[in-house]
């Protein structure tokens, strides 16, 4: 791993720890983290898309997210992209960066959601700035594998 990534990893750990420290307000903490992720993604994408053309459709955009976007944030591509062609996309990452130091199975599974909130927001913010309003959720059944589900909201 590049050592330049370590500060981000450690900052993310502290970010999560800071917001979930008030134990009874875990839902509030997760939505704060999600909001921070949203703003980060919203700003980040301005910079990342400076060389790309307008995307021809939604699927084209999702492919960009799985490849270039994921590589620039996590140094790897999404392992699997699936869609029902009705606005639901499932992005699967088998070795998710924020989980792969924690466990390689079911141990600590109950703590997984707090390490997903920021990234869900990041995805939602990114898509929002590219004109797609969506709901992003993450599903972890065995660490460090994650399935992000993106539901596009049609207006």
């Amino acid at each position, binding site marked *: 791993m590049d050592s330049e990534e*370590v500060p981000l*990893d*450690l900052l*993310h*750990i502290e970010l*999560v*720890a800071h917001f979930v420290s008030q134990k009874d307000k875990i839902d509030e903490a997760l939505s704060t983290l999600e909001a921070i992720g949203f703003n980060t993604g919203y700003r980040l994408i301005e910079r990342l898309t400076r060389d790309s053309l307008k995307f021809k459709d939604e699927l084209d955009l999702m492919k960009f997210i799985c490849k270039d976007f994921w590589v620039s944030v996590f140094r790897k591509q999404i392992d699997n992209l699936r869609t029902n062609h009705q606005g639901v996309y499932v992005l699967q990452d088998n070795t998710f960066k924020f989980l792969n*130091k*924690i*466990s*390689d*199975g079911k*141990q*600590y599974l109950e*703590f997984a959601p707090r*390490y997903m909130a920021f990234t869900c927001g990041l995805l939602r913010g990114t898509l929002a700035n590219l004109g797609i309003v969506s709901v992003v959720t993450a599903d972890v059944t065995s660490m460090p594998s994650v399935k992000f589900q993106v539901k596009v909201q049609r207006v």
Partner: protein
Amino acid sequence: MTIYNLYIFHENGTLLYYQEWHRRKHTEMSREEEGKLLYGMIFSMKSFVNKLSPSDLKDGFQSFKTSKYRLNFYETASSVKFILNTDTSVTYSLVKDLLKAVYAQVFVEYAVKNPLYKPGDPILSLLFKNKCDHFIKASSFYK
């Protein structure tokens, strides 16, 4: 050649981690007691070695050997202490390289960078255990 067991101690003497492979004889005390005794012995050994040295030591205490086993000691700049017991045919320089690698590639990666691990607490992560086991078994002097 064989590796018997590994102890990792925190700066303050807490036993962070213990794992054994080919240990055949056990003490009658609990693991914590055994850890305290070992830590105390290492602590004394370090100051003893430093005091009795006829010239300035660069590395200090590294290992000792009995007729049955060799105890290898490696300490990081942050005072994390690794103790690996091997049989007598294993040399210290081999063990030092292994312990350095365990520190950098297992301890730092899967304990320090694990958000659910609080520095100074005993390590309970199964991922850490698996990685550590894997690393030791892959070494050239694990039987």
